């Protein structure tokens, strides 16, 4: 099992803030909109240095999505910032009509996704956003795993023409991906080559998958670990290449098992190479208040859950 080290833990939302600030310096067309969550989204640096390109919208997310769609007309590249819940479900129809169906070059940047928002509880912990956004034609859906990857993704989506949903989170997590790693939309990242089971993870579950890989190695199980930061378009080629080798797969995500990464993988496999699959995901439930670590454990999203899923799926393969 390949070793991954990190010097510090950082939050992915700060990766977004750093990427946005760099875009401010390098791309005069980038503009930012925020619905009264500038600090939470780490957009302060952009606001401070590029005030003429920062638009405070207030607590009015529907208006924010329409504004962003309109700002593209004339060549601007708008980045909207609010929590994932208010970036998706609250404004689904605005995104659908004014952004996705209209093919607008808007980047919907969503923080505090999933359970790891923590103590605020289920009203703010969205576990359905990946599903909602990947259902929209024209929409690209990205869920990076650490600070460096979120920063790189933020910069990369400005270069891509079309609507994007960029999902990240609140807690600090190991910052292990190389700072200079190029972010390629739609391209899976191989983290560890293995032969017994494929583990495909996204977002905060990527580090859990690495931890699980070590625990599995201790048990003599060789896990292939893939970081899927782009859920749509899915890197089907990378999924199939790996599962053709290992003959089974675990999908891991901080999202409902309905409609997330797991279902995207299952669709690819069902069509091309049917194979046993186990889901590490929330089980069609809302979250609750608690610390991020407590929640990840209670709702079955720990490294131990990844290990158990790997053992289950391997046993199904052997039947």
């Amino acid at each position: 099992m390949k070793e991954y080290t990190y010097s510090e833990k950082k939050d992915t939302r700060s990766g977004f803030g750093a990427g946005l600030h760099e875009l401010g310096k390098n791309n005069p067309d980038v503009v930012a909109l925020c619905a009264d969550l500038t600090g939470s989204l780490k957009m302060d640096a952009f606001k401070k240095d590029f005030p003429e390109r920062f638009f405070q919208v207030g607590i009015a997310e529907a208006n924010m999505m329409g504004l962003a769609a309109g700002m593209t007309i004339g060549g601007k590249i708008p980045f909207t910032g609010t929590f994932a819940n208010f970036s998706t479900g609250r404004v689904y129809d605005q995104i659908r009509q004014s952004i996705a169906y209209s093919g607008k070059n808007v980047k919907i940047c969503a923080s505090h996704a999933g359970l790891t928002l923590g103590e605020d509880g289920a009203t703010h912990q969205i576990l359905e956003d990946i599903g909602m956004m990947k259902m929209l034609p024209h929409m690209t859906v990205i869920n990076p795993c650490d600070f460096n990857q979120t920063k790189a993704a933020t910069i990369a989506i400005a270069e891509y023409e079309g609507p994007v949903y960029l999902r990240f989170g609140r807690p600090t997590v190991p910052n292990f991906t190389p700072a200079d790693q190029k972010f390629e939309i739609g391209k899976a990242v191989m983290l560890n080559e293995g032969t017994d089971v494929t583990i495909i993870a996204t977002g905060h579950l990527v580090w859990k998958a690495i931890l699980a890989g070590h625990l599995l190695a201790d048990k003599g199980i060789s896990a292939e670990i893939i970081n899927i930061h782009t859920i749509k378009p899915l890197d089907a080629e990378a999924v199939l290449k790996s599962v053709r080798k290992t003959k089974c797969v675990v999908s891991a995500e901080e999202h409902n098992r309905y409609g997330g990464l797991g279902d995207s993988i299952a669709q690819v496999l069902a069509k091309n190479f049917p194979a046993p699959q186990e889901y590490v995901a929330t089980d069609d439930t809302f979250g609750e208040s608690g610390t991020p670590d407590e929640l990840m454990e209670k709702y079955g999203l720990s490294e131990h859950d990844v290990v158990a899923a790997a053992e289950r799926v391997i046993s199904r393969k052997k039947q």
Partner: protein
Amino acid sequence: MTTVNPHNKSIDELKEVAAQVRRDIVRMVHAVNSGHPGGSLGCTDYFVSLYFRVMNYSTDFDMNGKGEDLFFLSNGHISPVWYSTLARAGFFDIEELSTFRKLNSRLQGHPATEEGLEGIRVASGSLGQGLSVALGAAQTKKLNKDNSLVYVLMGDGEVEEGQVWEAAMYAAHHKIDNVIATIDRNGQQIDGSTNEVMGLGDLRAKFEAFGWHVLEADGNNFELLLPALEQAKKSTGNGKPVMILMNTEMGYGVDFMMGSHKWHGVAPNDEQLEIALQQLAVNVASDY
């Protein structure tokens, strides 16, 4: 860059164009037995005024529209009047009006960008979104140091949507004074009159309280509408967004369609079409 209105027609000429557009509207909705003639007929004089006199633009369509006045239709269901006006103004072939609402057409039931129809910059139909889009486009114009204007039309029933008021508050706060919004006050919506369905109250007082400069206009009389539009233009650039409350009669120009919500989304039958076309007498050689 200086752009001008490519037609700049006189009032007499505008009346002829408006009659032709109204003929197009009733023929388009009759041909597919669907669509929304009432609001389309009521707003015809407004559309013809903008595209044949007031707005500065090029018919060589460019999505970004730099240096051009932009128009957004928020109440997308009155697409027939927009499609006819765009075709008559020279954005696309008049013959294409015959494809309205048919399979593989660029003239979708509600306006869309997906099929690349010239003149359309955002999809609309799900109500309440167009004002936000127009404000965004207006702010980009300011960033681009582009002095042209942004126009947007909404229905009066449409202001029942909460997003309209989010946008209204934002526009005043950010001093977006290069936008001219218009509300079509025909007093009708699908289930009945706006008074019956959801009383709108005093829209002038409401928008003024939100920080807008508010004008009123008669939308079915060029002699009154054109000066009101000129007055609205003069009111831009003063730190406030501009709102025209435009009184129209739903179905204007066809007597049996006038003043009733019943013709909001119903097409005329063969006999009704003939009566309507007789009332909209114009050189029929110009029909598509």
